[in-house]
């Protein structure tokens, strides 16, 4: 049982939905970013998504693109992102950490070496946007073997014929992308999302978490009502980007978590 599995078992036992928060590692600099990350569990975050900055984030909107650029300009590296996880693990042994990003920095490091380092740093799962099931031998299968969850994205274009392929080899949870589009774009609609979540849940026992287009505590609540949890990324990153203090950012996160937990 991974930390992710344990977290969902605990949430289920308490009748609660999951609140997942995304931040870009190293944004705007290592120290500030670490302070925010360390504060996330206390603000009600159930699972932390730690963004790995990349020069060419093809599935991300402007907000997360700029966050990646700030982090890289601030000297963030893959080593420092792993170090952030190591630091968090000194004070928190239960909050799952999922690294999210693109494949090239991992491929460049070497898959085996990366998995060993991620495991040692206390990482629990990976979301790699540009690795569909067709490329499972690259990282998905080695990651599962190393004991890390490989969390897959399902999207509105994933039809019934394709869904089983997407669910095979997925572990931890399924991340349903609420819109066809990039991060930080259109507002997610619970009415559109509900049947899609039901469609996925009919085919898997894994929890289904919904992300993209969730910006407010109200939307977090409406989405959590129809799924196993909600992810917020761009709305948090935007506040970091405009220079809010870690305390202000965490206060905003607390509101979102309360929204998701209110149902």
């Amino acid at each position, binding site marked *: 049982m991974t930390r992710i599995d344990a977290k969902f078992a605990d949430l289920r036992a308490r009748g609660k939905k999951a609140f997942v928060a995304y931040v870009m590692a190293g944004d705007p600099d290592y120290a500030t970013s670490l302070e925010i990350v360390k504060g996330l569990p206390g603000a009600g975050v159930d699972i932390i998504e730690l963004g790995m900055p*990349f020069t060419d984030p093809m*599935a991300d909107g402007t907000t997360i693109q700029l966050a990646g650029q700030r982090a890289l300009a601030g000297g963030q590296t893959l080593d420092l992102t792993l170090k952030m996880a190591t630091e968090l693990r000194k004070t928190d042994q239960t909050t799952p950490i999922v690294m999210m990003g693109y494949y*090239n920095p991992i491929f460049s490091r070497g898959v085996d070496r990366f998995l060993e380092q991620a495991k040692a740093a206390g990482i629990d799962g990976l979301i790699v946007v540009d690795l569909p099931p067709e490329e499972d031998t690259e990282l998905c299968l080695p990651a599962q073997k190393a004991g890390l969850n490989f969390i897959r994205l399902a999207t509105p*274009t994933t039809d019934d014929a394709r869904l089983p392929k997407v669910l095979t080899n997925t572990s931890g949870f399924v991340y349903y992308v609420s819109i*066809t589009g990039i991060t930080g774009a259109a507002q997610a609609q619970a009415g559109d999302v509900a049947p899609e979540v039901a469609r996925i849940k009919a085919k898997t026992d894994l929890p289904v978490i919904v992300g993209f287009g969730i910006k407010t505590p109200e939307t977090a609540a409406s989405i959590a009502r129809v799924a196993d949890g909600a992810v917020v990324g761009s709305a948090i990153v935007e506040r970091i980007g405009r220079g809010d203090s870690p305390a202000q950012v965490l206060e905003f996160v607390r509101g979102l978590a309360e929204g998701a937990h209110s149902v």
Partner: protein
Amino acid sequence: MPDDLINSFMTGPDENGRFGQFGGRFVSETLMPLILSLEAEYEKAKTDPTFWAEMEDLWKHYVGRPSPLYYADRMTKHFGGAKIYLKRDELNHTGAHKINNVLGQIILARRMGKTRIIAETGAGQHGVATATVCAKFGLKCIVYMGAHDVERQAPNVFRMRLLGAEVIPVTSGRGTLKDAMNDALRDWVTNVRDTFYCIGTVAGPHPYPAMVRDFQSIIGKEVRWQLAEQEGEGRLPDTIIAAIGGGSNAMGLFFPFLDDPSVNIIGVEAGGKGVDDRMEHCASLTGGRPGVLHGNRTYLLQDNDGQILEGFSISAGLDYPGIGPEHSWLHDVGRAQYVSITDVEALEAFQLSCKLEGIIPALEPSHALAHVMKIAPTLPADHIIVMNMCGRGDKDIFTVAKHLGFDMKI
């Protein structure tokens, strides 16, 4: 060198879209179903005579194919070595080889019922070709172009707008071709249901590299029979040379000759200010290492942490930190040789072509020509070089004037 089909260099990619370790389908899940349906549609079209009949009709009557294979006699005499032929793809409608591929993709898009076409462009040649074919078929066309390129390729920007396309300047990154491709992918993922992404080079997720190569292969196929017509039945070129950014004109010339062991194949990358550790160049094969970007694994300019570096070249069309995956494979298996040429060398070749042959070349093929200048004098008179003159230089005269210190203000 292979002498049977089992060892052929022409069978790639495999069913996973791989050329050896290169290629693949590294895209987000949203795009994956569309990529698979595109592959199915292309596989169907490939063996459909009506598809090729439509292509051939348009190539002949709209593009002006076949493009001439021209014996450059003054250039040959000037170097006093190998016999130099130029494949005149700069004479195509829209002034470059790009339209060969665009026609194929737009016909496919129409078959798939897509009504909105998006494209990325560097030098603007692919954007102009896409805007042109969209105008011809009455399709909506949106072209993403790096803001830096919008500035240095102003004539092509105006051309696209005249043709009814919307040109969107891309300001992310350094505002060049790589960034334009990122934004085109973001558009595609957002408008996946009605939009067709018309990629301009032999890169991107499978099936694009193979599909674009197949459409561009008309270049090499024509060279085969044209050379035989001029030099005698069965005569093959001894060396074929083309410039490489993503590598579509080169793949189009090379592919039909891959299994002819006597043909020496040379790709010319943009060396910018020189291929050294300052990395002010676009020579992915000479100065990069394998990585994953824009849907495929290929050689990339990147730092130690896997972050992609910006390329540098005087030529907007070559200014890309990657290269088509089939080139990476041909490089690794040693079937083709890849060299680099600097901005300064390309400018010299540009001027020489104007003065000796009355042909104003684009800066992209000027790189290939600069390598011809290097090797032609060292080769015997019965050695035949065929170089792909893949684009004309009208779009580049402002850039060249600036570098030569000529004031264009009247």
